[in-house]
């Protein structure tokens, strides 16, 4: 059993890490309410069985628990009708360059949609790297896999995201633009 946690410490950790962990979980399982439950569960686990290494390990420990719970939650409740996975068929992959001239907001919207096309493990590893800024060792610890596996998984995840973005750009380009957007672009 690790060091005992006090109420004030627990509150402090919840305030400090809670919102970010909820965002991480929500990004993986695409369910804000479920994400809140998962992060609550993680803090309850922290209270009942804190890691032996003490406070220095709380952050990575919580991240690991939240990531695993989120991936497991999504795997248990795979919803039909979700966005289709990114095709790995080379014939289906677009070689066109991304559509130029999209605003940052539009790009952000497209990347969120593209992320939904990835499976939960790819989403998780991308968020741990890009959003949480974890090192390969930290990602390996969070996912419970060897470091070499982290590198290969990240490679595949980034390739899948790139393909998904190209498909999103293609679909976006095929949609008729509204008069307002066209007018702004001409400006």
């Amino acid at each position, binding site marked *: 059993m690790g060091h005992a946690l006090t*109420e004030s410490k*627990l*509150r402090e950790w*919840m*305030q400090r890490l*809670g*919102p*970010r962990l*909820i*965002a*991480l979980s*929500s*990004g993986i399982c695409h369910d804000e309410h479920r994400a*809140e439950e998962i*992060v*609550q569960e993680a*803090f*309850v686990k922290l*209270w*009942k069985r804190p890691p032996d290494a003490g406070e220095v390990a709380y952050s990575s420990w919580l991240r690991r628990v939240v990531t695993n719970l989120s991936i497991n939650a999504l795997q248990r409740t795979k919803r039909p009708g979700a966005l289709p996975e990114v095709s790995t068929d080379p014939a289906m992959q677009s070689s066109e360059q991304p559509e130029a001239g999209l605003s940052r907001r539009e*790009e*952000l919207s497209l*990347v*969120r949609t593209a*992320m939904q096309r990835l499976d939960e493990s790819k989403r998780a590893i*991308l*968020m741990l*790297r*890009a*959003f949480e*800024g974890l*090192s*390969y060792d930290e990602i390996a610890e969070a996912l419970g896999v060897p470091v070499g596996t982290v*590198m290969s998984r*990240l*490679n595949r995840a*980034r390739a899948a*995201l*790139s393909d998904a*973005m190209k498909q999103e750009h293609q679909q976006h380009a095929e949609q008729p633009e509204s008069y307002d957007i066209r007018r702004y672009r001409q400006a």
Partner: protein
Amino acid sequence: MTDDPTNTTPMDCMDIKALLSSLLDDELDAKSRHAAERHIASCDTCRALVDEADQLDGLVAESMAESTADSLPEGFEGSVLSRTVYDTPTVTYMHRWTTWVGWVAAAAALLLAMSVWIMDRRAGLVPTGDDEFARATAPAPRPTGITSAYSQRPLGSWVHPGDEPVEPANQTPGEPSEDAPWIAGEMNAVPIAQRQQTSADLHSLMARADLTPNDAQLLYASSLLLEQLAHADPDSFADVEAVRHIAEYDEILPRLAELRSRLSPTDRSTVFAAESILLRTVRGPVSQDDVQLMRQTIAQMNLAEKLDAIGITPQSRHSV
């Protein structure tokens, strides 16, 4: 061979693709990084690949940052604290203890209630004085008219108010005549007003001041048995069997007989009618036609209405 990082095997596009993440995330060793950078400097495709991956990382980070709230959702902290800080072992033990005590108390209350009920039942059959004891333990006067009713007399003749049970005419008890069912005759032999009067009589019985709570309970129980017979399935006899079992187990018939002996002539006939039906059920045999006639008779006597009246009457509000 030297450790000079610049002295490396050149990389190609396939190598860059394979090492893209490590390159992007600064996870390559010095030698590999140098080789990769040399290739990228001379390859537009690989440079675009690295730039795109870097841009996507930025987009992911920014989109996640946008989704991150500034504070915890409402109720989040409270929910966690209620399951952690405020969920102490003593509270759990107290809950377990109170739950255990609650169960023991409930069991004790149930045993007490059952004991009181059993004692009440027995008290109803155990008189306080010798005379009452003699009367209660004397063989119950047999409703002798029943055997005749089984074989010869129509229903109307022995439920008529004022009639006393008559002696049987060479009839073996319990054996109905083959010539006529035990409740013979059409129900038209009993005027409707008279049948309704039977219902009213029973109602008046319940309200009699000299009736004890046990008497009321007995009458209520008997009416429930008649109610079950009134809805008996002629094809299965399950209801007949159930009524038979209960009437025998609870000694309904001798108790009704004892009660009848303390009643006025009008009330006596009503109880006698109920006894007749129950005795036939207990003694048997009961044919399908018998069941049909039972149902008709009980319905014509408005037993459901009597039960409603029983429920309203305060002194008769007992559960069987």
